């Protein structure tokens, strides 16, 4: 079992590493972790678990657990849940019918459609290009690799309005390279690609670094071409990371405002995205419309993250472990 322990030490496996420590508030186990505790191999002697000193520091634990849960609940409520609840209440100010009317207004539907369409394109492009960038950064050695690696995070750190101006000066009217994208959907795509660049790269990179190169050699020894090996061996390993990066990029894209505000042009039914529509409705004093579309955006983001969790949870259950 030497290898198993080695692997546990190497792999990021929160459940196990914490488990044997004496004060063990059960509630701290992050959800989404397999009931086996992640690291404990299913074939391990069940006596192992029984032998753990579970009951040390009982008094401390008894006090600590409700305190911890209390802080987390309070924080989440104040920062996340209460504002969301307030928003939802505002959206349903005139009942379900009022909400429905606001959401299905042609301009609102158009804005939501543009948002989802553009974000989906951006997410898909990111899935492919982000994976490629991560691959090159991990597997290839070239001059300036560290510089490139640092540049990846720049769009993330840059205020989005600055990104917008940067893009406008390049792709705007009188573009120095002759490509004018302002007030087009392609302009939106480029702006969103700019700000969502790091998501897939940064989620795939660590997985690729940790990936066992011998597995690819094994596939090659069995006759698999480089492409077959990538498709059947490497890609399934990267899939959860690609998916989660893509999902985050999508979620970021549907809510993006700053980077698209200048280059998008805010043309209703053409390049007006949901965030701009919301802004517009507030300005013309239609808070209900703004709240309703916000709730729609919220629902889309929520469903995206939910799907992401379900899918990555499933592959994690199958794969997360020790070899």
């Amino acid at each position: 079992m030497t290898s198993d322990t080695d692997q546990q030490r190497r792999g990021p496996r929160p459940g196990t590493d914490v488990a044997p420590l004496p004060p063990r508030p059960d509630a701290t186990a992050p959800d989404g972790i397999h009931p086996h505790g992640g690291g404990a191999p299913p074939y391990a002697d069940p006596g192992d678990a029984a032998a753990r000193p579970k009951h040390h520091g009982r008094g401390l634990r008894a006090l600590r657990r409700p305190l911890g849960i209390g802080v987390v609940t309070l924080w989440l409520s104040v920062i996340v849940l209460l504002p969301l609840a307030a928003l939802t209440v505002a959206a349903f100010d005139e009942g379900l019918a009022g909400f429905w009317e606001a959401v299905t207004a042609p301009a609102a539907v158009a804005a939501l459609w543009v948002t989802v369409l553009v974000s989906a394109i951006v997410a898909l492009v990111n899935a492919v290009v982000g994976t490629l960038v991560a691959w090159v950064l991990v597997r290839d050695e070239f001059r300036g690799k560290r510089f490139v690696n640092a540049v990846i995070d720049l769009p993330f750190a840059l205020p989005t309005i600055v990104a917008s101006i940067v893009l406008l000066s390049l792709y705007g009217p009188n573009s120095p390279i002759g490509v004018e994208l302002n007030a087009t959907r392609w302009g939106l795509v480029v702006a969103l690609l700019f700000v969502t660049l790091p998501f897939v790269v940064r989620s795939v990179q660590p997985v690729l670094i940790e990936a066992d190169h011998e597995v690819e050699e094994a596939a090659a020894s069995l006759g698999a071409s480089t492409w077959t090996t990538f498709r059947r061996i490497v890609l399934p390993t990267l899939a959860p990371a690609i998916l989660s990066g893509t999902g985050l990029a999508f979620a970021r894209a549907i809510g993006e405002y700053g980077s698209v505000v200048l280059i998008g042009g805010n043309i209703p039914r053409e390049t007006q995205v949901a965030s701009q529509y919301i802004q517009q409705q507030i300005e013309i004093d239609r808070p209900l419309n703004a709240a309703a579309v916000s709730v729609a955006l919220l629902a889309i983001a929520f469903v995206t993250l939910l799907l992401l969790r379900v899918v990555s949870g499933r592959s994690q259950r199958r794969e997360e472990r020790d070899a």
Partner: protein
Amino acid sequence: MITVTSARKNYGSFAALDDVSLDIPSGSLTALLGPSGSGKSTLLRSIAGLEELDSGTVTIEGRDVTDEPPQRRGIGFVFQHYAAFKHMTVRDNVAFGLTIRKRPKAETRKKVDELLEIVGLDGFQHRYPAQLSGGQRQRMALARALAVDPQVLLLDEPFGALDAKVRTDLRQWLRRLHDEVHVTTVLVTHDQEEALDVADRIAVLNKGRIEQVGDPVTLYERPANDFVMGFLGSVAHLGGQLVRPHDIALERDRATALALDAKVVDSPGVIDAVVERVVPLGFEVRVELRAESGERFAAQITRRDAAELQLREGEKIHARATGRSSVIDVDPALAI
């Protein structure tokens, strides 16, 4: 037959393979034995095509594969850390080589089931690698490598990651498997006991060179040099010579010792020593001694002999070498 000719491989200034030539007969189970950094893994990976030689050639069954990628060498490779495809079931793992060759599904399934039965994993078809123990994973890896009917089976420290008990079981199992399947097998190991136990030929490597090739008995009894002797079993320094600890006899009476020693050709002579420690090892007893010269050495004698001698710590005793077969002069440059 695998033939490696004048293989050289450098990593920077480090010579992993320094002009290595080796023939591995068809159907044999050959062990490449050596300490870490001796080039044994590099040699194996070069045969597999996972490592490119700087110069030299590799032929497998008469075919020059030096410039062929691993995909076209007709090999099966087993890694120390299993290299299991974690997202696939045991069945899909073993079937991988056949699936990508687009063999008919029924044929693949039949072959996989047969192999899983041979490696003792019948009934585990639908498990994932994570649900197997280390030993089971390695047997799955073996079945996976055998599925493509390789001309040669290459094993890189296949039992290195397993605990001692599983390791001994699995190597005996591998020996039986080889007797059934007869595929030319090359096994890399740093464990001399494993090499002696499982292989019918052993090539001892050191510092990128082959020191000696032969069957286990020859290597043990007639080592070509003191590196081979030292690596294939324990040795004791006795009067400037290397002797196997069990080829040392202890006598209470100096005259008897001298008389018996006179019959041994090239003997290191009778060494007067003090018993420092007596360690019972089950069937045998290890006696740790200090010669008058201050040099420490150990003798391994049977329990019966130990009982007759009634050894006590601190007592004086006379040591002599009993045979010359495993006695070789120490090369002062290599003195351990």
